[in-house]
């Protein structure tokens, strides 16, 4: 079933790319949405309970290396898979327009399929293959369908050397992540030599080098400060569907990888304090950067770094609360930031820019439903209790407060303190964004147009998901509840 769930979108995606002149954009988007829905249903259906590896497939592959085609859904990967498939469906629905290029839909499908492959791999080499497979198509998405970023970008001076800012951002993105992947590959080789197996469930490595290499590799992908400078450029240059995939799915490849490899690496505990502090600094650093952004897409991109900081802090504690925090935080970030990027994308489609000063004030009056959706996404992203964004952050705080087995109290509590400062700053910059965009004396603009049906459906689905996960966090958290206490609730 897993094989089918991966192959259906991958094949449909390839066919759309090959036959891009034969189908219309609208048809292509419907086909893509259908294929992703098939994946979503299959992955939802494959679940056999948290104690087992569900839908396991194990076929020999490259015998001399000990690499096998080993796929399966675990308690950690299941939420990631469902979230990815859902985001894939919504991205395809978003592309339901006459001017959509079928090739873009095809690339979205291939990227989604490859990412789901990462989440369902139980072999380290297979993991790496899918990891790279997701990367290359993204270059085309950003470079071909992206739009130049604003001149405040990190490489403004260098950008002039490239005709196209989007292509510059795409190449930067590719260079960073390929660099990270190279470290990761060496790390995987070391693990394979050390433990004699590449199977996730059996592998183990006592090598410090492996731990450092793997963590560096994922630090680029997640990203962790100071390896984050590719992200604002790439996320803001990409087209809407690309930004959503980058934020909701791609960053999760990094966090999922960290969760997965932390079980394999015995020396992870030596790296954990550095991860914890870097993650916590990232929360504050990115929140400060958000506070003065004018470009809404760059703001959302920077906010992602902060949210990933919470996840990294949680993973570095290696506790059960930390695991729940990391998974919930990743999934919630996918939904919330996906919604934020959809909202920012609709603004950019209307006004041709994501600059908040140029979009102008008073969206509450100019396009009420779009403004309300944006405000809800912002409020969810700043972690209001009762919406999905909160529980991941809360559990990260709890994991840091409990310290866990691998961190020391000074490190963990420093992380806790930085995280609290970060939450306060996050509130500040989102309140500022709401004040600049939603509130204020409305100045009518030619682009003023409220949500269309397509936008309403896509964003509505995410709003429902965010509210439901916020009010019933047990949907995900029950997977990680060690024992139910009936007496002491």
């Amino acid at each position, binding site marked *: 079933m897993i094989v089918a769930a991966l192959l259906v979108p991958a094949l449909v995606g390839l066919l759309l790319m090959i036959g891009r002149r034969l189908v219309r954009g609208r048809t292509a988007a419907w086909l893509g949405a259908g294929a992703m829905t098939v994946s979503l249903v299959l992955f939802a259906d494959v679940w056999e309970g948290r104690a087992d590896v569900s839908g396991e497939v194990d076929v020999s592959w490259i015998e001399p290396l000990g690499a096998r085609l080993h796929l399966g859904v675990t308690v950690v990967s299941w939420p990631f898979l469902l979230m990815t498939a859902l985001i894939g469906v919504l991205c395809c629905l978003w592309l339901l327009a006459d001017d959509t290029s079928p090739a873009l839909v095809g690339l979205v499908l291939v990227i989604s399929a490859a990412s789901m492959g990462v989440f369902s791999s139980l072999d380290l080499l297979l993991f790496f293959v899918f990891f790279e497979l997701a990367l290359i198509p993204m270059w085309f998405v950003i470079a071909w369908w992206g739009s130049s970023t604003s001149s405040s970008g990190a490489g403004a001076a260098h950008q002039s050397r490239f005709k196209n800012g989007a292509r510059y951002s795409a190449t930067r993105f590719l260079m960073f992540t390929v660099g990270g992947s190279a470290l990761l590959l060496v790390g995987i080789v070391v693990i394979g030599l050390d433990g004699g197996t590449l199977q996730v469930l059996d592998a183990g490595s006592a090598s410090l080098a492996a731990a450092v290499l793997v963590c560096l590799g994922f630090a680029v992908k997640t990203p962790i400060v100071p390896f984050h400078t590719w992200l604002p450029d790439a996320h803001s240059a990409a087209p809407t569907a690309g930004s959503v995939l980058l934020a909701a799915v791609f960053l999760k490849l990094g966090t999922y990888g960290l969760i997965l490899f932390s079980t394999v690496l015995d020396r992870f505990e030596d790296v954990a304090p550095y991860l914890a502090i870097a993650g916590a600094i990232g929360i504050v650093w990115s929140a400060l950067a958000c506070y003065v952004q004018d470009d809404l897409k760059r703001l959302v991109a920077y906010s992602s770094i902060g949210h990933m900081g919470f996840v990294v802090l949680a993973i570095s504690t290696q506790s059960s609360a930390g695991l729940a925090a990391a998974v919930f935080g990743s999934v919630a970030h996918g939904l919330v930031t996906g919604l934020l990027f959809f909202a920012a994308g609709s603004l950019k489609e209307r006004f041709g820019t994501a600059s908040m000063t140029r979009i102008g004030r008073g969206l509450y009056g100019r396009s009420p439903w779009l403004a309300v959706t944006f405000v809800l996404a912002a409020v969810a992203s700043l972690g*209001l*209790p009762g919406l999905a964004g909160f529980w991941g952050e809360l559990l990260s*705080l709890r994991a840091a407060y409990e310290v866990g087995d691998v961190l020391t109290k000074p490190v963990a509590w420093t992380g806790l303190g930085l995280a609290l400062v970060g939450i306060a700053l996050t509130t500040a910059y989102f309140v500022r964004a709401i004040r600049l965009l939603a509130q204020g004396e409305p100045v009518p603009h030619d682009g003023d147009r409220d949500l269309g049906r397509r936008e309403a459906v896509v964003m509505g689905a995410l709003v429902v998901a965010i509210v439901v996960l916020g009010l019933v966090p047990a949907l995900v958290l029950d997977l990680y509840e060690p024992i139910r*206490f009936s007496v002491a609730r």
Partner: protein
Amino acid sequence: MRSVLRSHWLYVALTAVLALVAAIWAVPHLSEPGWFAYAPDPTGFTPPLPTLSPDLFLFPASAQIVLLAVGVGLLVQIYSTAYLGHHQRYRSYAMVIVLFLVAMIAVVGTTNLWVLLVGWEVMGLCSYLLIGHEWETGEARAGAAKAFLVTRIADLGLVLAILVIGETYGTYDLLGAQPLDGEAKNATAIGLLVLVAVVGKSAQFPLHSWLPDAMPGPTPITALIHAATMVAAGVYLAARMLPFYADSTVALTAMAVIAGITMLMGALFALVQTDLKRALAWSTVSQLALMFAAVAASDPEAGLDHLVAHGVFKALLFLGCGCLMHAVGTSALSAMGGMRRPMPVTFWTMTIGFAALAGIVPTAGFFTKDSVLHALESATEGDGALAGGTAWALFVVALITSLVTAAYATRLWLKTLLGPAPGGLDAHEAPLAMTGPLVVLAVATFAVSIGQPFHHGIGVVSTVIAAAGIGLVLLMWRRGSSLDWAPAPLAAELGLDRPFSRWVPRLTGDVASAVVDLDRDAVDVYPRGGAAAAALGTRGLALVQSRNVQRYATVLAAGVVVLVVVGVVVS
């Protein structure tokens, strides 16, 4: 027009249903004995992961607060049909009020700390949205942003307090976690964290300045959220959590000091305001501090009684203020006066409200303030966690505050309702939908007195003090004083707002700009340096492959020479 009218009453009906359900649920709990139920459980487990099971539970004091919230909420909904019914965004306004009431019930009616937290923060969000209801105006935007930021940052204290409670008692359930007498653990930490949260929510010193700045919000909202319920929820939380930190002298002393500073400061600021709404806002700050004083003196019941009474009479005053604003178009004191003839209902009901604020027999304000003062006086014996000296100081400050309170209540009464009417004023009584709630609240101001305890000694003292305050102001009024006194530091509210309005935003902005610059020019050095190094390397390698045969030959020859020399030297 008809459909508009119908849609207004739709929201009133929705609120009424909510109020009815809450009342059916809460009323039977009013007469239950005891006010905390103890059900300690063996502890020492890791707490479970959070859930949001409702876990509804009421004790008498919380049942009273639920009834207060839904009662004032319903009256405010009725009032708003006339006050804001014409507004183009009435629908969202009325829906947010309903959401707010649900959140308030969640805070008061649950034992699950997570549900409490969700309600607590959703209330803050509703407050933010409603203060910013007139988001076209800069004042409303700024007030809303400030209120949300200050309360939410303080709320982090509650989040941490809940985490500490979970780790200490192994559960996130208020009943499951109740410590037995003398067995409270981490009391000081929990107490101080709770204190941070309630200081923000209830606008106590030093986080007090958001509440007066929240006054650009619609007046009915001020009555409901920023006087009767949400800000008072801070007192409820402090009282509800008291068993966790009742042993901690540090936490209780900190609370007593904050309460003492805030009550006198708020009352003095209220005395010099030139705007009725802002004066009433400072009065709310001061009265909330009085309730915290009772909690700090380990008599939460007195604090919660005063919460209910204050909720009733302050809602009455704010709704009356709304009627005056409806009539004269502004809340400035200078525009008011001479309201007895044109607005008799507003005049008499507000007079009752001011009497309750000043603490005159037989209004509810008298009896509940009496209980608070009695609690403070009992604490001066020093057998609780609060030291006797601290309690004495607090008691004296509370008595001075009573004097100032009576004085500013009289001043506001004289300046708004009596006094000479400003020229050209054509005041008229508000419609029935607005005066009706006033009458109901005025009746309630007396009704809440029923069954309140009465303490003879304190009662006489506080009556004398109130009479002195009133008499002093009346005397000055008779002698022709305009009552517009404002010493410069008081008028500037002691400059206490400066850190929040200037320093912190400016500092954050500067640091943030620096971060963005560093991100571009410092963090991004290694990828750019890497690119430059690669470029340099390729250029070097390109030199070697110059396709210039002469150069190849030269290099070859030079290499041979070098090798020969090395060979000779080495051998």
